[in-house]
């Protein structure tokens, strides 16, 4: 099981997973994000600072949650990507369509 912490920063919900976001963890992350969106917590930040590995299943989970949040009027923003993880977002061009920030503070502040 992946460790996933959820914190509130004013009206922004920050999700902090720790470990590898692979096929084995994707369903767990999907459940957490879907539950938050279903509860109306639509200003989401995913802090990936503790994630050193991501695969296509992990990416798919984040893209699906981003689409779900955007469809409901919110968004899923990412921050603190490690270099290897960032390279995966670049190779799949997701870096251009997802909102990616250097730090958690910056991502939370971007909600204004």
């Amino acid at each position, binding site marked *: 099981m992946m460790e996933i912490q959820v914190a509130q920063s004013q009206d922004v919900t920050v999700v902090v997973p720790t470990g590898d976001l*692979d096929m084995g963890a994707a369903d767990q992350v999907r459940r957490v994000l879907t539950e938050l969106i279903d509860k109306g917590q639509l200003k989401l930040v995913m802090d990936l600072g503790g994630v050193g590995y991501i*695969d296509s299943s992990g990416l798919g989970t984040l893209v699906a949650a981003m689409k779900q949040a955007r469809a409901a009027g919110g968004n899923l923003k990412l921050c603190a990507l490690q270099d290897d993880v960032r390279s995966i977002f670049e190779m799949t*061009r997701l870096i251009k369509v997802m909102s990616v920030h250097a730090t958690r503070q910056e991502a939370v502040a971007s909600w204004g």
Partner: protein
Amino acid sequence: MRDGGPEGTFVLTSEPQHLARLRDWLRGELTRLKVENQEQFGLQVAVGEICSNSIRHAYAGLGGKPIHVSVQGNENRLVIEVRDFGKKFDPEAYRPPDFEAVPEGGIGLHLVRQFVDELSYDVTQEQGTRWTLVKYRRRE
């Protein structure tokens, strides 16, 4: 799951939670073969994606099915084989991802190709698919 195959071979069963142990084993093999850390990450992604493909498509998500991974290397290249015994890979069914549409799936093989120099598959066995990944080694 067991990892007691011949040296350079790892056998896992088709539960996604075993992929982490596969990566640990692969890291050890690549370190033994003096592969740089950044290249190790890419090969872990590539091998992980092929195994995920076997779990999802060859075995339709069923657990307990075998996947064999082997690594061989010399000063010129690394050769990694992934073998499953389920439904054979069907290239006709594969659709490359449409990045303009922001895909949620179908990007695994795209990622594999980013990290290896050659990717081939063999479906001539009685069962399953044998994938071969080749990475040429950079000379100093």
